[in-house]
């Protein structure tokens, strides 16, 4: 196991706020493990405990068999951490930042250049630019290079793609896949559900607890109800009508359609009939497979 977390609890404000509430999980070598959840779920506290920047109230955690309390120096030397907030030196250039991080980890850019080559080549044209003057996507790539320069055994990425446009997000995940191929274990958090499916396994988190841990496929397969998609040009109107339907269990806008479930089994015709009686004729109703986001919404509701 590259990461093992056992009954970790962390409270703030003299025990009144449970940031992390008795969490346990394990991550295997070479796995991309996702922590998926909104702000306040406890993701950042967990990262800070695993990178030895914060002490848990109780429980145990190990990274590469190093204990987060006793072996904190080994962890600090052996892992890479990209915090949620941009934490490079804004007044140093791209190249100076990278040199700085290589030096404090007692290595050189050349020594592990193969690890960062693909990423660094994209920012190399701007190597003399100050880090503070880079775009969001570029800052994120530089931060990843700096976290990788000492060839860490585990990479901790706290919301690396928040606020980054979807093209840069895709490029970033392509890079993570390449790092995975080099057997670097990755613990990554994200609020974006479309990134969840790219993880080998994931933990859905809310308010300091883990709602479920599994592969994306199994989480989707465990969805308890038949899901229907209704497509219409009058989303707001149909949304309200479906919510007022006596048998509706849940109903929400989802991309270009409305996703809806019912308390008792039903079929497309019954739903179409109900809506056409309300004057909505130009629409389609079909049974669909749930996405990870549907599963998460279902769990948050309960």
């Amino acid at each position, binding site marked *: 196991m590259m990461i093992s977390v056992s009954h970790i609890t962390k409270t703030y404000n003299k025990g009144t706020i449970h940031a992390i509430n008795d969490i346990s999980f394990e991550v295997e070598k070479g796995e991309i493990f996702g922590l998926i959840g*909104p*702000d306040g779920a406890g993701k950042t506290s967990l990262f800070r405990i695993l990178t030895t920047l914060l002490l848990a109230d109780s429980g145990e955690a190990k990274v590469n068999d190093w204990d987060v309390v006793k072996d904190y120096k080994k962890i600090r030397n052996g892992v890479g951490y990209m915090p949620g907030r941009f934490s490079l030196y804004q007044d140093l250039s791209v190249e100076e930042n990278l040199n700085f991080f290589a030096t404090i980890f007692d290595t050189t850019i050349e020594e592990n250049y193969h690890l960062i080559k693909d990423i660094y080549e994209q920012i190399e044209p701007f190597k003399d*630019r100050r880090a503070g003057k880079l775009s969001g996507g570029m800052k994120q790539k530089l931060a990843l290079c700096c976290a990788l320069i000492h060839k860490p055994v585990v990479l901790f990425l706290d919301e690396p793609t928040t606020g*980054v*446009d979807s*093209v*840069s997000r895709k490029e970033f995940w392509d890079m993570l896949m390449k790092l995975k191929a080099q057997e670097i274990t990755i613990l990554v958090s994200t*609020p974006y559900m479309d990134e969840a499916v790219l993880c080998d396994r994931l933990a859905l988190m809310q308010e300091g607890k883990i709602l479920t841990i599994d592969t994306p496929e199994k989480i989707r397969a465990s969805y308890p109800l038949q899901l229907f998609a209704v497509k219409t040009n009058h989303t707001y109107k149909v949304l309200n009508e479906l919510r007022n339907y006596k048998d509706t269990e849940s109903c929400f806008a*989802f991309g270009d359609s409305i996703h809806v479930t019912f308390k008792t089994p039903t079929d497309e015709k019954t739903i179409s009939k109900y809506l056409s009686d309300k004057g909505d004729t130009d629409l389609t109703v079909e049974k669909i497979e749930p996405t990870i986001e549907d599963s998460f919404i279902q769990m948050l509701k309960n």
Partner: protein
Amino acid sequence: MEPVIVTEKLTKKFDDFVAANELTFEVGKGEIFGFLGANGAGKTTAMRMLCGLLKPSSGKATVTGFDIYTQTEQIKKNIGYMSQKFSLYDNLTVKENIRFYGGIYGMRRKEIAVKTDELLSMLQLQGEAKTLVSELPLGWKQKLAFSVSIVHDPSIVFLDEPTGGVDPVTRRQFWDQIYYAADKGVTVFVTTHYMDEAEYCNRVSIMVDGVIAALDSPAALKKQYHSSSMQDVFYQLARNAKRKAD
């Protein structure tokens, strides 16, 4: 549809750099208009001009009928604005925040009182009227920030990445609020990085390197670019952007 935003060749240059290049578009009353683009495409520059915060270099534009060169004060009174870094005061209560913004927009005390009751019941925050904003969960703050941004019944509300950091359920409750406001005739001008939210808009524009590269309904854009999702449309348009470094 009666237009509330009209721009014609709206341009902003910073020295040699053309941040926004000849933007021409209209947004109608009650429309939910998605304003998308990669980081650095020029969205913020365009939005700041439309809010009367930045003088254009050339081109024309009116917002709610007011000229963006000469009538910026009138524009500011007739629009609402909310960004991801909400402008709520953490150490004021929910009610005090509403009163503060009502006051800023020159509403009378009686109007503010009526509006406060209306907003609190709509948000189901009656029980929290005297709670400090710092003690509210993020999702509630977000809904309150939106309500405060339309407290003075503006014709348009500008939302700059309003839904960052919240869970999928809260994100949808927020969109319910947007739909409701649009249904009442408020024009919603919204930027987002969530491509599923782009699908919720009536029309969407996608900026690439300072120009509007595409503008249509999500359905029409998907058809035009032979895509099944806005995610893919966006990717096709933005992946060749040159301005990645700014």
